[in-house]
Every structure is written in structure tokens, then in C-alpha cells.
């Protein structure tokens, strides 16, 4: 009896520990190393916009990194273009449109909502909803069972007594 309790508490401890480790790893900053550029800006706002844009735009060559985290040739050119357009006073949406016209949805880490990307945007919600529906169904059934079946009726009580009596 005692050993089972230890085993259970040890498992609970392990489960909690792994959850904590997982949460901590989520909190850690992601390891994208910004490229050191020597771009000059007039204002801090321009610089912040540049950083945000180069984090939001994806490098077409080295696929899963952003413009800011990539050493690729195209990424370098595109960073220079973003800088140039910011200095020319173009708005963020104009810059994003410029990139979209040349490289398509791929270059946007947050693709536009179109007929083709609807599933991309709302697919996870759909999965969550159906999963939730099943979870709810299971939970309701489980509650029904515990509500009705934990109490023993008179016949079952008698049978239990008999069985216990037989043993002793």
C-alpha cells in the first residue's frame, strides 16, 4: 500500500516537473540572432519599425527564419529595401504590399486572410472546438456514471456483505 502511494506521488512529481520545464522553455527568448546592420535612422520610431518589419517578414531563401535572423543574400537585399522605403517615408502596409507583390504570402509570417488561407487561420479553432465537444461529451458521460452508479442498492449491499463475510 505504502509503495503504491510512493509510486503515485513520484509520478505526479515527474508530471509537474515536466510541465514546469516546458513552461520555462516557452518563456525563454527564442534563439534568433539579429544580423548586425549598419543602417542609420533619423528617429527611434523608424528604427523600431525596421526591427518589427524585419521580424515579420520571412526570408525567402532560408525559409524558416525572418529577415532579421538571416544571413542569406536575399535577406540582406530585402533588409536594405525595407530600410530604404522607411527612409522614403513609406508606410508599413505599403512596404508589406511591396514584398507581397514580389514574394507572395510566403514572405509574410502572418499570411493574409484569403479564401486560400482561411483554413490556416481557423483550422486550429476548428480542431479545438471538435476536441472540446468530444471532451465535453466524455466528461458528461463520466459524471452520469459516477452520479448513478456509486451508491449500491439494497441487493448489491447484501451481496457485498456476503462476499466480505465469505472471506473473513
Amino acid at each position, binding site marked *: 500500500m505504502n509503495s503504491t502511494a510512493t509510486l503515485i506521488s513520484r509520478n505526479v512529481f515527474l508530471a509537474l516537473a515536466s510541465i514546469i520545464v516546458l513552461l520555462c522553455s516557452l518563456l525563454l527568448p527564442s534563439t534568433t540572432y539579429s544580423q548586425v546592420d549598419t543602417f542609420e535612422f533619423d528617429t527611434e520610431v523608424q528604427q523600431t519599425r525596421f526591427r518589427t518589419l524585419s521580424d515579420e517578414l520571412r526570408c525567402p531563401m532560408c525559409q524558416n527564419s525572418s529577415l532579421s535572423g538571416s544571413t542569406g*543574400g*536575399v535577406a540582406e*537585399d530585402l533588409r536594405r*529595401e525595407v530600410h530604404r522605403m522607411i527612409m522614403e517615408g513609406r508606410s508599413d502596409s505599403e512596404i508589406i504590399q511591396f514584398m507581397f*507583390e*514580389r*514574394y*507572395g504570402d510566403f514572405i509574410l509570417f502572418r499570411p493574409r486572410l484569403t479564401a486560400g488561407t482561411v483554413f490556416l487561420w481557423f483550422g486550429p479553432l476548428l480542431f479545438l472546438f471538435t476536441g472540446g465537444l468530444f471532451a465535453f461529451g466524455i466528461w458528461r458521460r463520466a459524471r452520469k456514471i459516477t452520479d448513478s452508479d456509486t451508491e449500491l442498492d439494497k441487493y448489491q449491499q447484501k451481496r457485498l456483505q456476503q462476499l466480505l463475510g465469505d472471506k473473513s
Partner: protein
Amino acid sequence: MNKLKFYLPVLGFVVVAIALWRGLYLDTKTLPSMLIDKPMPSFELTSVDGSVVSNSDLPGQIFLLNVWGSYCLPCLIEHPTLMRLSEEGEIPVVGVNYRDRQALAVDWLAENGNPFSFSILDESGRFGIDLGVYGAPETYLVDANGVIRFRHVSVLDETVWQEQFLPAIAELREEGS
């Protein structure tokens, strides 16, 4: 009803599993070009041999636009195919010397042969951005009106030529006649 309740999740699982399984084998490296069916971006730039070239210098017929660089090994692999196409007069080839240095480009052409009617010099990669290029080699099929109709990323060898370009060109010819 109960049967449906059992089979619905199973069916859902199968659908998702098939979709994900297919996803494992999707080609995510080759991106679709945004410039398909759009006119070639306008340009007025220096060519590798030093003359000024613009859209009016483009061949008035179906041609290949090949993005290359002297640093690019795959370009060397596809080079014999481009040489053959140009020498046999099968199709004119225009080059885009992408993110290279003019002197290196000149040397490379002298050493390996020049299949290009001319090569647009794009040292900064700015023209490449307008084309939506993400790395050499890339080859575009442009129609007689200067509209981009097809793009192939990476090496253009005889197999790719036979299997992808020839049917695409045949389609363009049919459309034009």
C-alpha cells in the same frame, strides 16, 4: 446513430492522417512565383559587357530569362544545357547576373562560354527583388509580349527542359497561333 458516433472520429482521424502524411512529402522549398502572367518588370540597366539595356532589347519572341552568378555552382551544372539551347538556336536566352561582380561575371563567361544574348548586371540584387528571385539559378519563360509565364527554380538540365519547358512552350505557341 451509435455506429456513426464511433465512425465519425475514426473518419476524422483518417482524413487528418492522410492530409498530414501528404504534407510530409510536399515540396516546400520551391515557392510559386508571384510574377506568373505579369509583364517582366521594367528595367534600364547596364549589361555585363557594359552597354545599357532595357525592356526594348528583349527578344520579340518566346525566350528564357536565366538568373546566374559566377559564384553559383549549380549554374555551372546547367550551363551546357543553356549553351546547347542558344547555339542550336532553339530559344534565345537572356541572363540576369545576380548579386555578382562585373569583372567576375566577364571572366566566368570567357571561361565557360556565353549562351546569353545579353546579361543584365544586377550587382545589388535590386532587379532580382522585382523579379521575386530568391537565389541563383532560376529560369523564367517569357512570352513574345514580354509576359512571364513559367518559372523553374534550381538547375535547368536536359530532363527539366524536356519535361517542363518544352510542354510549356508548346502551349504558348498554340495559344499564339
